């Protein structure tokens, strides 16, 4: 049947979008193209297919493929049916039940030679040089099989897949993942949605600054009206964090080890467990603690472990049954916050010592905001959505927001960091601004005026603190809006504000439930025929700069209407 589809493609390039292994339909011709900029784009064709409008959500399977977990479930569910990890135990030969042997379970697993921290728990990494795509395929294939056979329990009817992927995923990776889903899971079509946008949806927002603190890296994505407008990355994320935790534990454990004895080295699993169970994050150090809701006892006084001992400081007893002999580590609660400190914020190091790829989170976010256009910024800064596995670390969100607020107060939105001789004048300005800010804060958010008008005229230097200009028309507008418009809360802007999200998966589940079609809709036959190059009739005209080049040609060129496109992933 693939061949027939192929024939079809040749015959009617213009009908390409309709190809489902069936004959094209008139409605497809009718469907009006939208601007390629919209990440979420319509095709009436899905619904206009016979009985289309009565299709139920079950038609879809919603997947999120992360670098360490796969989440899967059905539309309309608040949480995935299964969250499947990629551990070494998931990669055994069939019939090798070693991990169920208690003796084996008791042993601490050693890191294999030449393997990076937690490498054998990863599905993929964006650095392809070290990645064995064949293995990736195997892993994913097995996990997907498990998901389908143990959790989804679907009847034989093939299901479409709604796939949440981080934007700008390397194409070899994508094509491998898609290959598995099409090949082994027999999906008739796969819709790609980018996770930051989904996180935004799952937060009930249209625009947001999505901070995804994942495993390998932290991604800050500015989303404006459901469009990625900016992206910044840092390697300060889960991996570094758990490595720091391991360091900490090793130190603690080795304190009472005689010099002669072999040093204790906790396994990845142990470090991970400690991190997820009792790891936490301190609030901002005492200095200008205006947004601090914190018990004084675990404040930065306890930076050093020593004082922690003197003060009757709460401690945690962590069992290490896999250690030989099994031990229990009594560790000061305060010091369990150190890893987060070191890995994510690195307060010791001066800012200019960081490389661009290892910025501490708050700086990363600040810069991201800074580089956003002004009006976008004022929307985004009060819609900071922190998600990703690490974001569950208690206290982390609070800390980030607090740090950010502090930075904004300090610097406003001035990209220049040092004014040299002009410093004094600069100071004056800043003070001036801070006063405004205070004033403004007292008045609170009541100034709907500036919030209401979406396309703001480019505001005075610091958009965050522009003093609201009283405009009768604005006021009128405001009243109208209040009478029959949405509550003003929907237009809050200009202040740092954190918004919780249910996460990308929930977002995808929502989108699928609402039957919204993504821009990137890939169909089975086409993919199996051409892979990601499917859309590449116009190789020569579209040379879109790409993060991971797979050669030119997956761009959203002129010819894309006729076939599917890769949207943000191009």
């Amino acid at each position: 049947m693939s061949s027939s589809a192929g024939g079809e493609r040749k015959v009617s390039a213009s009908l390409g979008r309709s190809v489902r292994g069936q004959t094209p339909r008139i409605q497809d011709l009718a469907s009006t193209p939208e601007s390629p900029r919209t990440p979420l784009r319509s095709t009436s064709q899905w619904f206009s297919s016979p009985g289309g409008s009565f299709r139920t959500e079950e038609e879809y399977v919603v997947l999120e493929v992360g670098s360490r977990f796969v989440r899967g479930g059905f539309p309309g569910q608040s949480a995935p049916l299964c969250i499947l990890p990629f551990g070494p135990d998931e990669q055994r030969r069939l019939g090798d039940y070693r991990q169920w042997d208690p003796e084996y379970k008791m042993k601490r697993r050693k890191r294999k030679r030449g393997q990076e921290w937690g490498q054998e728990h990863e599905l993929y990494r964006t650095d392809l040089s070290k990645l064995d795509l064949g293995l990736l395929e195997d892993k994913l294939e097995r996990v997907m099989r498990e998901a389908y056979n143990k959790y989804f329990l679907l009847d034989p009817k093939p299901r479409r897949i709604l796939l949440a992927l981080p934007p700008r995923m390397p194409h070899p990776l994508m094509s491998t993942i898609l290959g598995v889903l099409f090949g082994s899971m027999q999906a008739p079509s796969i819709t790609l949605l980018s996770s930051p946008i989904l996180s935004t949806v799952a937060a009930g927002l249209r625009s947001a600054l999505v901070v995804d603190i994942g495993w390998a890296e932290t991604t800050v994505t500015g989303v404006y009206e459901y469009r990625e407008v900016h992206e910044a990355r840092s390697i300060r994320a889960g991996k570094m964090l758990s490595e720091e935790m391991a360091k900490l534990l090793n130190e603690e454990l080795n304190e009472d080890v005689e010099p002669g004895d072999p040093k204790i080295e906790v396994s990845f699993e142990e470090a991970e467990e400690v991190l997820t169970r009792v790891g936490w994050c301190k609030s901002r150090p005492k200095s200008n603690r205006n947004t601090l809701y914190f018990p004084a006892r675990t404040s930065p006084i306890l930076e050093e472990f020593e004082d922690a001992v003197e003060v009757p400081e709460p401690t945690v007893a962590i069992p290490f049954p896999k250690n030989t002999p099994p031990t229990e580590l009594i560790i000061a609660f305060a010091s369990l916050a150190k890893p987060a400190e070191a890995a994510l914020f690195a307060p010791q190091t001066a800012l200019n010592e960081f490389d661009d790829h290892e910025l501490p989170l708050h700086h990363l976010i600040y810069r991201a905001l800074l580089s956003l256009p002004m009006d976008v910024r004022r929307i985004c800064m009060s819609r900071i959505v922190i998600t990703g596995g690490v974001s569950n670390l208690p206290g982390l969100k609070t800390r980030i927001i607090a740090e950010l607020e502090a930075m904004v107060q300090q610097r406003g939105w001035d990209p220049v960091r040092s004014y040299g001789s002009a410093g004094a004048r600069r100071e004056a300005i800043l003070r001036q601004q801070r006063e405004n800010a205070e004033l403004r804060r007292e008045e609170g958010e009541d100034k709907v005026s500036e919030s209401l008008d979406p396309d703001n005229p480019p505001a005075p230097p610091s958009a965050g603190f522009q003093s609201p200009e009283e405009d009768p028309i604005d006021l009128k507008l405001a009243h109208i809006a209040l009478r029959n418009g949405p509550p003003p809360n929907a237009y809050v802007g200009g202040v740092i504000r954190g918004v919780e999200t249910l996460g990308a998966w929930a977002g995808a589940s929502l989108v699928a439930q609402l039957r919204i079609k993504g821009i990137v809709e890939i169909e089975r036959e086409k993919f199996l025929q051409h892979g990601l190059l499917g859309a590449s009739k116009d190789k020569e005209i579209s040379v879109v700069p790409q993060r991971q080049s797979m050669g030119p040609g997956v761009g959203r060129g002129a010819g894309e209407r006729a076939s599917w496109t890769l949207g943000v992933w191009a």
Partner: protein
Amino acid sequence: MSTQPAPAARPSSDRRTSTLQKRTSTALPKPSSIVLDPSVLIAQHAQLTGTHPITIGPGAVLHPHSKISSVLAPVVLGEGVVIYERARIGVGVGDAKAGDANRRTSVLPDRGSGGSLARGEGTVLGRNVVVETNCVVEASEIGEGSVVEAACTLGRGCVIGRYCIISAASVIPANTRLDDFTVVYSGNEKRINQTMKDRKEVRQSYKTKHAKQLDMFRKLIPNQLAKWA
């Protein structure tokens, strides 16, 4: 522990045993002797060996092929203790089989080291303690109402609290202390049995059930007490 309805236990027994508890716990090792309460049930092929004294409280039940050894130190079994088939009680019973009895001893502190007999306190099982099949118990004390499930190994000098449950095939390294109501499960996990701790009625019904179980054994198992008394 399961909480099924069951008629009342004889409160009298409780009182009697509480006193017995005191006595046994402070019992000094007398010259080699076997002190058996007349109400003890010793099945055929149950063994009591060793030179140090062995004291067994009222209502205790020794199943066939269970073994109480006082070769190295005295053994005291409180009232209503049940020892199942092939369970071995007493310091020193483990060593012989240490190798294959449990393969996991390798990854735990060697039980020989801690198990110094200097204290010579021997082994004391509190009231209504149940030791299941194939266990090796060298612990110095097990509190009232605790259950040691099948194929466990309790190292020397262990002190197990009251109403603990050592789930099957666990290994308790030497000189471990377990608080009351501890549950040891999945090999190395520990947790507190809140329900048992908070709810008196649960403990109560557990007691009554145990009593009934004892009665049942009396019905089913021919008593060889005479042979030992």
